[in-house]
């Protein structure tokens, strides 16, 4: 596996505001990388530096194992958060134009655009002007424009925002196909729940600083499985068990947080004797919780 993106301590500030501070990250080929953080935390600024739209004040950007050069942009597909199309242009002309700009020759660009439109089931729209199309169709065309030149690195900034569920699933499936074909994929989002199952590696950033990063499993394994969701019928007195730190009981549906180091199996044994259990699930913390915990700790420190 080779490293596609390597950022080494990049920083960028505007006026008084520090947009990105000392961000380092690596993205390997064949992986899906999530750049996560709340709105305004520096995700878009980081991406813009990654592909040379802005230059970092300090630090270095390496793409495909070489220092950044505009030539490598021909191997990158970027779908920005603020994205659009030329309204007056016909779909096919538009896609061919985007393909040509990324170094394809017109015939190849036209052929690939046709294939992608077929795959995305929008062939009937190719001779219409963009402004005549529905929003969902325009979104599909934006994906195609991003992927037309078969980029080795796909960067999508808040790709799921504003997507209808059908297109969101379509995009998700397309990204997984690309990943399996060995492409490196980076996407940024503030909706952490959406991407938990997609990412192989993540970087959480807050106020321009990376607060947590690594492989998804590895990050999660740093946090104990100390939450229990259970449904039961009967006497709730077992909730006084010493392993439980906090609990909320909504008439037979309990959300429980265990004390550090406590054994969930002890609690289960205790409960089995007292109530009828219909569900007992030991849950790992969600990314969102991890984020809140991490950022919360930093704030407290």
């Amino acid at each position, binding site marked *: 596996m080779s490293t596609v993106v390597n950022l080494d301590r990049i920083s960028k500030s505007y006026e008084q505001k520090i947009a990105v501070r000392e961000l380092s990250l690596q993205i390997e080929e064949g992986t899906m990388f999530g750049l996560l953080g709340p709105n305004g935390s520096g995700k878009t600024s980081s991406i813009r530096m990654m592909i040379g739209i802005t230059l970092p004040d300090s630090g270095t950007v390496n793409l495909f194992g070489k220092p950044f050069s505009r030539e490598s942009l021909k191997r990158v597909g970027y779908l920005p958060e*603020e994205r659009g199309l030329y309204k007056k242009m016909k779909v096919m002309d538009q896609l061919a134009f985007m393909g040509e700009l990324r170094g394809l020759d017109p015939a190849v660009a036209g052929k690939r655009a046709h294939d992608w439109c077929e795959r995305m089931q929008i062939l009937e729209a190719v001779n219409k002007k963009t402004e005549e199309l529905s929003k969902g169709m325009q979104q599909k065309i934006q994906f195609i424009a991003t992927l037309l030149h078969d980029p080795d690195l796909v960067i999508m900034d808040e790709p799921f925002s504003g997507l209808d569920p059908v297109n969101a699933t379509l995009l998700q499936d397309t990204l997984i196909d690309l990943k399996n074909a060995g492409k490196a994929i980076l996407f940024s989002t503030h909706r952490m729940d959406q991407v938990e199952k997609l990412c192989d590696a993540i970087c959480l950033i807050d106020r321009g600083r990376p607060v947590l990063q690594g492989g998804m499993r590895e990050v999660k394994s740093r946090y104990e499985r100390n939450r229990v969701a259970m449904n039961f019928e009967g006497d709730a007195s077992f909730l006084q068990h010493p392993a439980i730190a906090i609990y909320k009981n909504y008439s037979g549906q309990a959300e429980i947080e265990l004390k550090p180091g406590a054994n969930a199996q002890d609690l289960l044994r205790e409960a089995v004797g007292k109530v009828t259990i219909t569900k007992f699930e030991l849950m790992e913390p969600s990314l969102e919780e991890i984020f809140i915990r991490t950022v919360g700790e930093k704030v407290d420190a």
Partner: protein
Amino acid sequence: MRDIWLIAKREYLEQVKGKAFKVTTILIPVVFAAIFGVIAIAGKNSGVGKHVVIATADPTLAERVRNPLIADKDAEMIVDVVAPATEADHERLLAQVDQKQIDGFLWLTIDGGTANATFESRSSGDFATEGRLQSAVNRALVEQRLAARGIPASDVQALTKDIDMKTVQVKNGKETATNALSTFWAAYVMAFLLSFTVVMYGMNVGRSVIQEKTSRIFEVMLATVTPGDMLAGKLIGIGAVGLTQIGIWVTAAALFAGSAMGMRLMSGDMKIHVSVPEVVLFILYFVLGYALYSTLFAGLAATCDTEQELQQYSPLAAVPIWLSFGMIAFIVSNPNSVWSVAISMFPPCAPITMFLRLASQFPPYWQIALSLGLMVLSVYIVLWLSSRIYRVGILMYGKRATLPEMLRWLRYS
């Protein structure tokens, strides 16, 4: 270079295929023709068919004034005579003017050697009629005085005969037979055409930048092309659209002039004579003028979010044009005065004013070279500033940027 070419081609095709291009290509010459037509017709018809009365004590003098007025077939004037006229006639004529029975009357008195002429009418701006009366009165007085000195009537006619003045322009020390008006009209039309197209296409670039901004296409594009290439492609593409449109007009005008109807219309004073240096200069001034206004508006447009916001900057284009055309009369009659030379060096006004100067006299080549040089310099400066503002502005959404913000953007890399 390939990116610039692709972007220019896209911009060019989109605009040339667009509705606005077709409409303006047809409409602008129609409007032009209408404006010039109205001016020409109004000029010919002003002061036509007037009913005036000549009132004086001396019937012979009155006849002498009346004769040339009636002889002028174009004026179609009805001229009555009241002679000898009294104070009561004056009151009666005033009443007739007031009741619109006559358009006006000429009150002519001779007091010893001095003559006094007063034309009384409702309108005060009828220069054509006043001019005709003036010359008729002067001529009548000369005839009257010559007759008084005993010169025979036939000799008086010969002595006071009018002549038509011919105009001959001196070019490079040689007399050229072209009518002065034909070169004047050519340069005049070119100045109009320049002002129209330079500003129209300059604003067009601004609008195109705004459209790309509102359609959120910029960041998509910037993932592969540089802002500089985008701007260059846009300027070249839209500039080519402008040249195409002018080319269509010129071709159409040449075909029209070659046709039978055109031949008849364009003969005489309305004949248009275009020389090779004028064509070359026209292209140079169009390209430079367009470059100046389009780079300015590209930079400004990048700071705005809507076309309405951009409209607030339109005086930047309008004021130089008003200024240039406000000086038409002055420049045409004093093409080599300090002010005329100065304004034709001032880059925002140079394309128009230099052609107004060309209308009356070909300026020295060094002045043309200097004015072109100054334009190149100003294009360079505006391009430098605009491209910096553009680079930052196209990624900024929200409210229109203020001047201090723009100044800060200049420092970003």
